[in-house]
């Protein structure tokens, strides 16, 4: 178990587990956290899992741990690791089962005061149009040929079928489509799971929220994004559903034997991996990109139905109910990127699991209007607290492989949360705070209670203080839809 005595403090917001901590570590672990957050982080196995991740073959520079980190399975949630091409590895477990789980933010010019009496109706309509819950099927029925197009084309498929605008795609990471998706590397079983689920939210910590812009910290960036204090925004948090879960399951199983073929020694079987230039590595990369494209399309379809819910509920009550896209960003993904390592540009596969890409100003892949401010970073908080909009920085490119945090991060087990909190009491408490909750399960609601999470404001102050993202706006929820 890693203790605080094993850590070297770099500055107020940065700590290091040196490579010498364990003989099998190939790189050190760099942790972004205040001492107070570190006290919480050390209570679970996050840091042990980060040191395990630091043993993966082909790693460069460091494994990075975000302040919202928590224990996962194999690789910690809130971890970033980069492996050098062409021989470095790719690990499905270091990306996660919910491939391209991510967040989309839509903004409006709707004033909260003008619609506060319609929020209950809006919650009902959103809940009806955006299916949520375990194994829930969506409004779309895809045939095989259409699913293959979604796999290859991602958000572009939604544009061709009337679920998106060109502006939506411009303001999505990679324009909502990763090149190189390969449907032939995806099992029939994954496709069977994916076919009925496009346009569904799922369950667990996934949600659709209507928030109010509470505070603005970076007026120029907020203006460019169209964020105004007192106006409504919509946040959508979900991923690739059973389609992505099955792809990860398939490849974690297949790689159990691949590690033996490539003589890779690992401290945990969930970290199984294959060299990027191997047939196994290339197959997973093609399949993972397909799941990423599915997830982009999934959030886009949900955004379409969120817009429909706003129109159905608010048309005639407010002059402009339009929702424009601010950005859509993944926080479970493997991406081929170029980063400077020891002053030299190196092509790497960046594994982000519970971590958000946070590229700084000047990155050519951003829409023109964002190039001067940096890439929007979307940080959903726990239910009933706050969510944040940040922007990436040049510092993040140097210190965290262009990455930042992805949420508040759990600090309490689900079983303890359920013992301490009664779901119906929580719903009533949030309702008394003016937050309209629609949840499929009261037990599930209790598990996601704010008390089970770290303080998202403390997490955001850490990445802001460390310089790997800058604060733009704080959001407070008024409607929460959960599976």
């Amino acid at each position, binding site marked *: 178990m890693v203790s605080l005595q094993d850590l070297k403090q770099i500055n107020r917001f940065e700590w290091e587990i040196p490579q010498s901590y364990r003989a099998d570590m190939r790189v050190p672990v760099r942790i972004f956290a205040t001492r107070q957050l570190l006290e919480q982080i050390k209570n679970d196995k996050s840091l042990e899992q980060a040191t395990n991740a630091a043993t993966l073959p082909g790693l460069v520079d460091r494994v990075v741990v975000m302040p919202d980190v928590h*224990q996962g399975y194999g690789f910690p949630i809130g971890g970033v690791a980069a492996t050098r091409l062409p021989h470095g590895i790719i690990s499905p477990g270091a990306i*996660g089962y919910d491939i391209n789980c991510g967040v989309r933010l839509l903004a409006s010019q709707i004033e909260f005061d003008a619609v506060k009496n319609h929020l209950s109706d809006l919650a009902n309509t959103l809940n009806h149009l955006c299916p949520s819950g375990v194994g829930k099927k969506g409004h779309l029925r895809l045939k095989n040929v259409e699913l293959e197009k979604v796999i290859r084309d991602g958000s572009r498929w939604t544009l061709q079928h009337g679920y998106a605008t060109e502006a939506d795609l411009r303001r999505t990471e990679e324009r909502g489509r990763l090149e190189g998706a390969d449907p032939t590397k995806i099992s029939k079983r994954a496709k069977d799971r994916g076919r009925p689920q496009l346009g569904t939210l799922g369950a667990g910590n996934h949600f659709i929220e209507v928030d109010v812009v509470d505070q603005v910290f970076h007026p120029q960036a907020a203006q460019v994004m169209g964020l105004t204090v007192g106006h409504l925004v919509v946040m959508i948090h979900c991923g690739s559903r059973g389609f992505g879960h099955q792809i990860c399951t398939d490849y974690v199983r297949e790689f159990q034997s691949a590690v033996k073929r490539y003589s890779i020694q690992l401290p945990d*079987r969930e970290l199984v991996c294959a060299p990027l230039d191997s047939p196994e590595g290339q197959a997973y990369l093609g399949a993972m990109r397909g799941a990423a494209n599915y997830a982009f399309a999934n959030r886009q379809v949900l955004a379409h139905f969120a817009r429909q819910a706003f129109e159905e509920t608010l048309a005639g009550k407010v002059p402009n109910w339009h929702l424009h896209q601010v950005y859509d960003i993944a926080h479970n993904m493997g991406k081929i990127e170029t980063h400077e390592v020891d002053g030299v540009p190196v092509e790497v596969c960046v594994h982000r699991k519970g971590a958000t890409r946070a590229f700084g100003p000047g990155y050519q892949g951003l829409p023109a209007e964002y190039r001067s401010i940096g890439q929007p970073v979307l940080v959903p908080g726990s239910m009933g607290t706050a969510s944040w909009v940040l922007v990436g920085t040049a510092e993040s490119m140097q210190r965290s492989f262009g990455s930042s945090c992805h949420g508040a991060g759990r600090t309490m087990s689900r079983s303890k949360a359920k013992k301490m909190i009664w779901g119906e009491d929580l719903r009533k408490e949030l309702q008394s705070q003016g937050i309209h909750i629609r949840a499929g399960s009261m037990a599930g609601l209790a598990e996601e209670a704010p008390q089970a999470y770290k303080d998202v404001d403390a997490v955001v102050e850490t990445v802001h203080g460390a310089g790997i993202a800058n604060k733009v706006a704080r959001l407070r929820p008024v409607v929460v839809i959960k599976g």
Partner: protein
Amino acid sequence: MLEKTKWYTGTMRPKSHFGFREIAHTADWELEVWAPDLGTLLVQAARGMYHLAEAKLSSHPRLNRKIEFSFQEPETLLIDFLTELIFLTESEGLAFDQYELQFEGDQLIALVSGAELESISKEIKAATYHNLIIRESERGLIANIVFDV
């Protein structure tokens, strides 16, 4: 050494102790499962998984499935078995409460009986290999399984 060639009927009362319990995990679920033999361990893992998901079966009609597995090692079989049940829950809305497992060498034939779900509270993304080792102990075989939820 694990016994791979034996019959086990999950509805029968085994001679030794068996069971499952939840272990606190910050974000996901960890289930500790123990049993006198591999077949019972698989059954307890399935029961524990459905318990954590708060799966409630319809009273009728009863439905049966026959599932075949080939395996090289018991840990992979355990994950394959749970993965199959997760798939049937998501794709067909089914869960099972009776199990008849037949081992023949490196093959397992599972006859599972259950029904459509009346309700289920939690979505299980996957059964993982995280630190998964089936080990022998005073309680028989024991394994800790982490589920991504």
